[in-house]
């Protein structure tokens, strides 16, 4: 077990290094050199200024020097200075990260809790109305582009019914009621895919588990349905769902890009889109690294927690 964790950590470190190299190289192959583009954008094409900025950002040094200086700064928490926003990336992140985290946590809670509950109920009431709508509904949600779902929500609940605001997102401690009203639609939009996947996985693993002998024994002891399902069946059927919940973090990041664009929310996803469009390579580079490392970390945790959740799994 200890050896497994050590080996898994080393592997994750290797992958992390590959991720940083990938991010770094992709940025260096941008079609137009970002500094030139920026100088053109300011109105006067000035060779000396391009050279000055290139020097200031260290872009005239050899690639490997640039790579190591970037890494060593990031490790120390210095993410550099944005070309377009004219602010340090850390400041930008300080404003953006809480918004995305708020939205992401709300939608993770919805997709996990609602998805698992629906999947569980569908499995124990097999063939009833809930079970009959779960599979088609999850197929529809998986295939529905999240921007289309967002647009439908905005059109129906925002523009026609005037029930919910569909612009901006404030944090709960700034204005609680407004914040709750604002988060509903983006959170639905972002959690739909994860909810569908969780419900489907939960239903099939629950169906598998309630056929097991130990569940039959629990029934035959005369235990109530509540105890049989919640105490005996639920825990074991959650094992495959853990992987999906881990994958849900990736879904949240990808969803944030689309959802924050539709609902004009000033979060990390929106920042990523605007910086890619504005060729702000420093911010893009840092954000891509953050997205990649968070997901790497979550995958690592999922893998390690597996052996704790299910002791039958042995690593050798």
């Amino acid at each position, binding site marked *: 077990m200890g050896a497994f964790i050590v080996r898994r950590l080393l592997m994750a470190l290797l992958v992390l290094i*590959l991720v940083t190299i990938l991010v770094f190289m*992709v940025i260096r192959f941008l079609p137009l050199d970002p500094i030139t583009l920026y100088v053109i954008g300011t109105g006067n094409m000035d060779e000396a200024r391009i050279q000055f900025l290139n020097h200031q950002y260290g872009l005239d040094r050899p690639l490997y020097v640039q790579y190591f200086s970037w890494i060593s700064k990031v490790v120390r928490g210095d993410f550099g200075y944005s070309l377009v926003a004219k602010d340090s990336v850390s400041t930008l992140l300080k404003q953006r990260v809480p918004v995305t985290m708020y939205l992401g946590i709300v939608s993770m809670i919805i997709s996990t809790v609602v998805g698992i509950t629906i999947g569980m109920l569908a499995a124990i009431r097999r063939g009833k109305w809930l079970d009959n709508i779960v599979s088609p509904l999850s197929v529809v949600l998986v295939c529905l*582009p999240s*921007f289309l779902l967002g647009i439908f929500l905005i059109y129906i609940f925002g523009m026609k019914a005037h029930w919910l605001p569909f612009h901006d997102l404030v944090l709960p401690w700034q204005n609680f009621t407004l914040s709750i009203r604002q988060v509903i639609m983006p959170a639905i939009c972002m959690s739909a895919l994860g909810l569908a996947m969780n419900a489907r996985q939960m239903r099939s693993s629950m169906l598998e588990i309630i056929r097991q002998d130990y569940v039959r024994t629990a029934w035959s002891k005369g235990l109530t349905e509540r105890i049989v399902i919640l105490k005996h069946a639920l825990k074991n059927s959650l094992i495959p769902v853990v992987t999906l919940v881990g994958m849900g973090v990736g879904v949240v990041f990808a969803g944030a*890009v689309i959802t924050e*664009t539709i609902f004009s929310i000033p979060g990390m996803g929106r920042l990523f889109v605007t910086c890619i469009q504005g060729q702000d390579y420093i911010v893009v580079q840092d954000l891509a690294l953050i997205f*990649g490392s968070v997901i790497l970390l979550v995958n690592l945790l999922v893998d390690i927690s597996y052996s704790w959740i299910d002791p039958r799994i042995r690593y050798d």
Partner: protein
Amino acid sequence: MAVQTSQALAVSEIAPRTNELRRFTRVFFKRWVVALGLVILLLVFIAAIFAPWIAPYDPYKIATGGALEQPSAKHWLGTDRIGRDTLSRVIFGSRVALEVGFITVAVASIIGVSLGMIAGYFGGPFYIIIMRAVDALMCFPGLILFMFLSAMLGNGVRNVIIALSIGTIAQYVRVMCGLTLSLKQNDYILAQVSIGAPRFRTMVQHILPNAFPPLIVLMTMQLGTLILAEAALGFLGMGIVPPTAAWGSMVNDSYVYLQTNPWLCFAPGICIFLVVFSFNMVGDGLRDALDPRLRGLL
């Protein structure tokens, strides 16, 4: 009693002679949604191939009517902000969607399957390098990776295809590597090795054909995913940009008129949904018909 049971088992173990094709079609069409998916796909293919004859107007012709007209008998889905006919643009959009989907799947699967087979068959350093690179690629959520790559490559159909191909190679490598590892254990591969057959021939003639059913299912489902990804890029204003008639960029283009002209947004959006849905359903049907053991894995 016990004897009878074992006899009954012995008889039922012999598979009845069946016509493979008939069995395939029976299983494939058993679920009505699969058939529905196939019908929708056929319609989309017809629309894409015969677009110039089906579309009532030229999709790029400006001012075939007034700007932002509501749906009417003349323009079934209305017109966009510079008076182009929405229905014609939606019909032509199917061409871009299918083109991107099919070419990307072809490119990504050829590269991915080869790499996966090499990693699985040779093992050792090949396995470590290829699979860790795949892990690194898979650290990024699909859309983020696609955005990242297409920002690097720039806009246009060809660049979107390259970006999506690089972004989806990892899936094929993973699946193919797993398949190769398990197929390698079979006696017929060991027999090949023992007679000293060239490794390239073993891989191409014996491993590849046996890995085909799961790969076909994966490719069909990827078609849906890729069309969705291309549309998402288009919606974000990247990849395939106006004036090309592509569904994603049409939604992006008409999003501001949602309040007054919702069909400008809904029509291309619903097309994306229908095509993705159909590819997924057909993939499901193929999986059940080709190899039901894959249920839950693919």
